[in-house]
């Protein structure tokens, strides 16, 4: 089994550890950049893959927004690219559904799960806990290549004759189970399931590694209560993934059996074109339970890493200790715990027992408490801080804004009675795009701008970063605020066209407006892409610690090599948030500075323990 291979590899690796510098030279190109086991290279591989997927996902959404914004227009210019999916300049309705499905799948799983955790957990965990690498570099490499395989299959499905999966990112049966129902439920759905199964394997391999590394490989002095909040966040994200993804795997397996082996777990009494299918005895609501048992923790798998990233960036750039460090950890623990007992708030109108609905409503609304604690602490950290408005900081502050705006509507949706009106309308779309889509994207951007110097040894262009930020920030609100409004009016999501409904015609202008804002926002991301690629090669050279930050990754050389620290591993003496400490000559004291060297600023209880 693979675990024995790892132990073999491990022996070799430890032997090499003390002279890892020369180890570096005899690596071939393939070992170093392709099948690399170095966590920093794997992180970059995830980052590049995530960016690739984000471009595809964004492109798909621009296409379906054009349909919504300009229902009367004909898009003949798309015909050469999309072939038969555009007929006489009109988007095929089934293709529209496929676009929405693939947009959701790609953004939630491939960008905001794999791209986000894959990049930052891999990059920052060893660097911030003072480890040479992950617990198992080999499994870590496997994790990326499973993801790569999943990506290839998902990408290929976009070009299938019958189209990719089209039953929504939640793939509810019976729609997703019956090719007779929609052509995307044929080969496209099969590939979706195979791809997601591989994706889950990748997530589990990665998650097991993250957890093991955080628990076992922290450097001397780094207790759990001295960890940067980033590490706490990545750790809890991995725990959530470990508990939730296997359940999705089970659900997917049962769906595969229903589709290909004639079982009836989720299918019952279905008539297609006047003909009864042979499936009896299944329960489609069962699938919803299984899906959302993953699905709700999944939204926190997306947002938790950015909680950590944003906390770190806000503290550093406010030059203040994070407000309520322990409360931040506690609230993340609370959110992680609660995220497993609220899944049925996605199913209030599924025909579920209404009494059960009120239990889930109660549990759901409790999540607002730890969420509010976090928001309060971020704002209190900013309060009277000596703020540096770097691009990363702008994205982090905007993250807090988006998280509030999106979270407030969550509380509205969490009321089972209100949800009868709001479910499956654009109100829900607006809610989760603000709180998850936009906020997580902003957190990811903040992370890239902030850790770019450590990743590539160069700085990103700040002016271009500002431009990217302001256009994106404005557009995000211009897109999603109006969506609440049309959602309250009852405008349903996942409809190819609404021109058939007299009521909704008065929203024509608003939809056009949203579409234009969406396309501007998408275009603005190419500013980032240009900045990113340009700065890798031509950016200003970075120093070791450009943001004057306290965490351990900034004690490595500008371009940390294999093994991260050229000399012995750093030893930790203090928490990571000693910013602007009264009595200290500088406004930051890195974690590896002993108290014996900072007599002027030590508090009475602070002295070295050895």
């Amino acid at each position: 089994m693979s675990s024995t291979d790892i132990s073999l590899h491990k022996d070799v690796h430890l032997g090499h550890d003390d002279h890892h510098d020369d180890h570096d030279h005899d690596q071939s190109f393939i070992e170093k950049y392709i099948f690399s086991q170095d966590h920093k290279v794997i992180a970059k591989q995830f980052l590049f893959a995530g960016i690739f997927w984000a471009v595809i996902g964004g492109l798909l959404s621009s296409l379906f927004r054009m349909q919504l914004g300009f229902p009367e227009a004909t898009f003949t210019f798309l015909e050469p690219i999309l072939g038969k999916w555009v007929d006489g300049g009109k988007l095929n309705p089934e293709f529209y559904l496929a676009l929405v499905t693939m947009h959701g799948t790609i953004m939630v799983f491939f960008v905001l799960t794999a791209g986000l955790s894959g990049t930052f957990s891999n990059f920052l965990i060893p660097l911030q806990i003072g480890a040479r690498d992950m617990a198992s570099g080999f499994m870590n490499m496997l994790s990326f290549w499973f993801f790569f395989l999943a990506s290839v299959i998902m990408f290929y499905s976009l070009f299938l004759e019958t189209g990719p999966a089209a039953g929504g990112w939640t793939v509810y049966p019976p729609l997703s189970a019956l090719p007779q129902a929609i052509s995307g439920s044929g080969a496209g759905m099969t590939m979706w399931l195979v791809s997601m199964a591989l994706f889950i394997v990748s997530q589990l391999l990665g998650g097991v590694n993250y957890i093991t590394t955080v628990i076992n490989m922290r450097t001397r002095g780094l207790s759990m209560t001295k960890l940067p909040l980033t590490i706490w966040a990545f750790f809890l994200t991995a725990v959530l993934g470990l508990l939730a993804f296997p359940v999705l795997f089970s659900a997917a397996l049962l769906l595969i059996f229903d589709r290909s082996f004639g079982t009836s777990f989720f299918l019952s009494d279905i008539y297609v074109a006047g003909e009864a299918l042979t499936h009896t005895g299944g329960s489609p609501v069962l699938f919803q339970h299984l899906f959302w048992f993953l699905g709700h923790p999944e939204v926190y798998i997306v947002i938790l890493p950015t909680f950590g990233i944003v906390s770190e960036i806000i503290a550093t750039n406010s030059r203040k200790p994070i407000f309520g460090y322990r409360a931040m950890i506690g609230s993340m623990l609370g959110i992680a715990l609660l995220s497993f007992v609220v899944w049925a708030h996605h199913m209030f109108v599924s025909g579920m027992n209404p009494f059960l609905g009120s239990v889930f409503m109660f549990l759901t609304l409790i999540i607002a408490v730890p969420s509010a604690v976090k928001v309060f602490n971020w704002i209190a950290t900013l309060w009277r801080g000596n703020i540096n408005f770097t691009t990363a900081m702008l994205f982090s502050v905007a993250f807090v804004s988006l998280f509030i705006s999106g979270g407030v509507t969550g509380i509205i949706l969490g009321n089972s009675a209100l949800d009868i009106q709001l479910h499956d309308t654009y109100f829900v779309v607006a809610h989760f795009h603000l709180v998850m889509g936009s906020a997580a994207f902003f957190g990811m951007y903040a992370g890239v701008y902030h850790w770019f110097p450590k990743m590539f040894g160069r700085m990103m262009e700040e002016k271009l970063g500002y431009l990217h930020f302001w256009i994106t920030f404005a557009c995000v609100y211009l897109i999603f605020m109006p969506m609440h409004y049309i959602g309250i009016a009852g405008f349903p999501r996942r409809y190819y066209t609404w021109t058939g409904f007299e009521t909704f015609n008065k929203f024509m202008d608003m939809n056009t407006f949203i579409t234009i804002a969406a396309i501007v926002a998408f275009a603005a991301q190419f500013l980032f892409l240009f900045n990113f690629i340009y700065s890798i090669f031509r950016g200003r050279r970075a120093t070791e610690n450009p943001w004057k930050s306290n965490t351990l990754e900034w004690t490595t050389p500008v371009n940390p090599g294999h093994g991260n620290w050229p000399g012995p591993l750093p030893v930790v003496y203090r928490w990571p948030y000693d910013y602007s400490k009264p009595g200290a000559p500088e406004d930051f004291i890195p974690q590896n500075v002993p108290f014996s060297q900072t007599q002027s600023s030590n508090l009475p209880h602070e002295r070295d323990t050895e």
Partner: protein
Amino acid sequence: MIMNPELQAEQRRVNPLKFMLILLIVSIVMMFAAFTSAYIVRREEGNWLEFDLPAVLIINTVVLILSSIFMQWAYASAKKDNLKNLKIALLLTIVAGTAFLIGQWQGWGELVRNNVYFGGSTSNPSGSFLYVLTGVHAFHLITGLIFLIIVVISALKYKVHSRNLNRIELCTIYWHFLGALWIYLYVFLVLNH
């Protein structure tokens, strides 16, 4: 005196591979938690075919418990450097594990003879669930057998002994887990039938 921090960290950690194995076991537990709770939820909804569990399952259960005892014996022998017993015990574990799989296959045969099918127009989720639970468990048992074979090979190369217990310890944990998982499934099926 300067201590080497790397050495220190080395001593403090639990064997990371063991830790990883336990995490993987947690994820397998979650998979089966999903299956069995789906089973209960679905059963509550009615339209549930009742049938007798294959009689051979109880024999299989005993065989698998036996294999766990052999496994433990193998581990104890490795600890005492009794390499002859180690090999015998490992082989017995593999034989018992394989016998279990064959027994499960017989169980499926019995189900088919009683017209309980996995799929098709006459199948009912109650039967399909039984196939899924036993099938997915059998799949994991096969991975356990592969692991055992790897341990046997390294035992033949004299690489399993009291100062190199790592591999056999992981294998023992995994094998006991697979046994415990089956006992849970069996009790679950008996109670919910």
